[in-house]
């Protein structure tokens, strides 16, 4: 990022004034910034690092599973690896990935604001995130915990591994998540530019808004839960201790009250990205704008009523199983509405098959398949067979890796020119996209079969007749890893040497493209007055005019 100035001289086309990237180039100007765009970029760098770390853990796990017996490392290491894989991917990558990185960057641009409502809180959110990450890494370096990312009691209250710093890390990360959530909600409420009514908010903003609601409502419960586990470990308060009348299943209620909505904290931003990208690359107004917008809120709301479907065989009452079963079905409906409307957006559009669009296709397939298997899992009787098997593993990886990482990569490719003012190599982009989609299917479709045949999750050793499918899955994972490496390389190259792009390379009519790429520090010299709905492709006229023009 430091290179911009010299490059600009080389290219001989100096922009009108400094972009946010060049407005102060010292390290401190980054670390002490109040600029939402810089915070976003710092978040992006951090989450990419943790994606890499989590990916390494995942590959190690897959390598071990090549053989049914002990191999490479022992059971304890294996257990620690999958715990760390889960914690890293979920708390350090998935939850902040799209909202904190891309949300921070483009959300204020999209509503025509000069910054988020509380810029200092925003920066604090990043540092709190780093603090949580450091605690988690510290726990990992000192041996790591072996409870799985779910921390189920009483195993988590009795295991001798380094759980305490990990719990503390998760607790601290929760604060970061809450800060970001509060910031976005307030930003959307108070900082919309003139002309941006609620029904003109870009769909990305709607989804991030819904995400923020979940972050604010659910995260405190997780904070309390990990606090209780930590207290139970240190002081033996006995809240979840069966010997004192405590109920381990209560922990699961608490945990999933956060963690099921947390799935939507991860998926909704993915849907946000897709809503934008589908419109841009189909060059068409979103089909059923209101349906997509309100289904985001619907998911945020109903997402809270479904946590019990993780407890169907955990000793939850049959009555609650039924209630949670039927409530879970409704989340599927909102997702279905979104999917149909995205496909509808393509109808009579003008589709260009660029790299982000490849990821959209991947996303649609993974989300529908992953989502439908999710609803299938919420069908109480079927869950009895599938629960805690690789079927579940494959299902949530379809949603989280399949859908969310596809959306993350789509966002990365879609907004890369916006963020850095440069373009990447389109050909390599498509190669990597196809590798990733292929590798992903090869990794997780065998896992569906494994789970259906009865292989439980978190198994270090497994019965031999599962080996063939496990090998297939590992092969797919390797392919997936290669895809990520390719992306990493060509994006790094693009960051340094990529050709400069114009202000709006996709000719998108999303509001964030109304300013330069990369944007100047205060986003807009003059706040635009928005006169059109987002993604109105009936005309070529810009979607806003400047207030005093």
């Amino acid at each position, binding site marked *: 990022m430091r290179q911009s100035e010299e490059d600009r001289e080389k290219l001989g086309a100096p922009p009108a004034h400094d972009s946010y990237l060049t407005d102060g180039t010292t390290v401190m100007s980054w670390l002490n910034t109040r600029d939402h765009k810089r915070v976003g970029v710092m978040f992006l760098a951090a989450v990419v690092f943790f994606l890499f770390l989590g990916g390494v853990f995942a590959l190690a796990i897959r390598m071990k599973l090549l053989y049914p017996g002990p191999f490479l490392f022992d059971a304890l290491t294996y257990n620690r690896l999958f715990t760390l894989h889960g914690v890293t991917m979920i708390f350090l990558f998935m939850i902040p990935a799209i909202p904190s990185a891309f949300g921070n960057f483009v959300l204020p641009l999209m509503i025509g604001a000069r910054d988020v409502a509380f810029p200092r809180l925003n920066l604090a959110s990043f540092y709190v995130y780093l603090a949580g990450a450091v605690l988690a890494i510290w726990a990992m370096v000192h041996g790591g915990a072996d409870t799985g990312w779910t921390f189920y009691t009483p195993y988590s209250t009795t295991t001798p591994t380094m759980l305490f710093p990990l719990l503390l890390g998760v607790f601290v990360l929760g604060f970061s998540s809450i800060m970001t959530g509060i910031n976005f909600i307030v930003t959307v409420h108070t900082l*919309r530019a003139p002309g941006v009514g609620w029904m003109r908010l870009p769909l990305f903003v709607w989804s991030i808004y819904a995400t923020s609601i979940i972050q604010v409502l659910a995260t*405190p*419960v997780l904070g309390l839960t990990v606090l209780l586990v930590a207290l139970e470990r240190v002081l033996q308060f006995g*809240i979840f201790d069966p010997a004192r009348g405590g109920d381990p299943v209560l922990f699961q209620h608490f945990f999933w009250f956060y963690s099921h909505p947390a799935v939507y904290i991860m998926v909704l931003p993915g849907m946000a990205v897709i809503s934008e990208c589908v419109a841009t690359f189909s060059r068409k107004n979103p089909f059923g704008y209101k349906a997509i917008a309100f289904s985001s809120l619907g998911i945020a709301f109903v997402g809270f009523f479904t946590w019990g479907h993780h407890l169907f065989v955990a000793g939850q009452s049959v009555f609650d199983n039924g209630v949670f079963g039927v409530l879970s079905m409704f989340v599927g409906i909102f997702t279905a509405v979104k999917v149909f409307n995205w496909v509808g957006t393509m109808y009579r559009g003008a589709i260009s098959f660029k790299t982000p669009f490849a990821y959209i296709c991947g996303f649609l397939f993974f989300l529908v398949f992953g989502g439908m298997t999710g609803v299938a899992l919420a069908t109480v009787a079927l869950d009895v067979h599938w629960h805690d098997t690789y079927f579940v593993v494959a299902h949530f990886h379809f949603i989280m890796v399949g859908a969310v990482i596809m959306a993350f990569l789509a966002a990365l490719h879609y907004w890369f020119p916006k963020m850095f003012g440069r373009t990447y190599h389109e050909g390599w982009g498509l190669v990597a996209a196809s590798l990733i989609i292929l590798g992903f299917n090869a990794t997780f479709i065998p896992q569906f079969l494994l789970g259906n045949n009865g292989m439980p999750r978190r198994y270090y050793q497994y019965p031999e007749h599962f080996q063939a499918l496990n090998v297939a899955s590992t092969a797919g994972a390797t392919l997936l890893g290669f895809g990520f490496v390719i992306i990493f390389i060509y994006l790094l190259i693009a960051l340094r040497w990529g050709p400069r792009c114009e202000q709006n390379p996709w000719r998108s009519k999303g509001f964030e493209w109304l300013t330069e790429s990369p944007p100047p520090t205060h986003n807009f010299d003059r706040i635009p007055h928005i006169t059109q709905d987002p993604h109105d492709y009936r005309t070529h006229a810009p979607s806003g005019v400047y207030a005093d023009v």
Partner: protein
Amino acid sequence: MSEAAALPPGEHPARGADPHLAHHFSSLERQVDASRLGMWLFLCTEVLLFAGLFTGYAVYRYSFPIAFAASARTSEIWAGTLNTVVLITSSLTVALAIHFVRTGRQRAAVVCLLITLAFALTFLGIKAIEYTAHFHEHQLPGRYYRFEGVRLPGASMYWALYFLMTGLHGLHVLIGMSVLGVIAWRTSRGYYTPHYYVGIELAGLYWHLVDLIWIFLFPLLYLI
């Protein structure tokens, strides 16, 4: 929200000379609205933080009704009641402080805030006396429970929840006290004016929340 009011009056550095107005807000009114909404959202997270404990209470109260009722009867009811009165009154003084700032009587506001701090200290003092009594009686959570008066299964769970809930609430009292302390100092330095007093207002909101939670803790832990 009125769209017309949000129209920026031209280049941003030139907008008025209000030192409180941040560069990205179009008007001070909107900035204050943002701060208030942010605070309410934060209070919402606080409510949900306690929701977990209330759920734990509900579940174990359902499981061990007799033990909970018996244990509640051995708690220091006088202290709980007194503390309720103390907190409600401190809530009043905070509300009055904001009222005085709004009407331009800074000195009265500072006095109100100091009274609030005194009430908060009283609350913690009473709480400390209570805790000491419970420690002496071994009315303690989990494996430390050795109270002779109530030997029912589930009684230790009552005390676990008692200490968790009052402890977390006490922590909030402490945080609230430090916030109010800073606010009192700032008020005495004339930082808040009838024109701009959002800081003291937000601190007040936090303190009222502390009161609010106690209003629920009191009957649950002491009375029934």
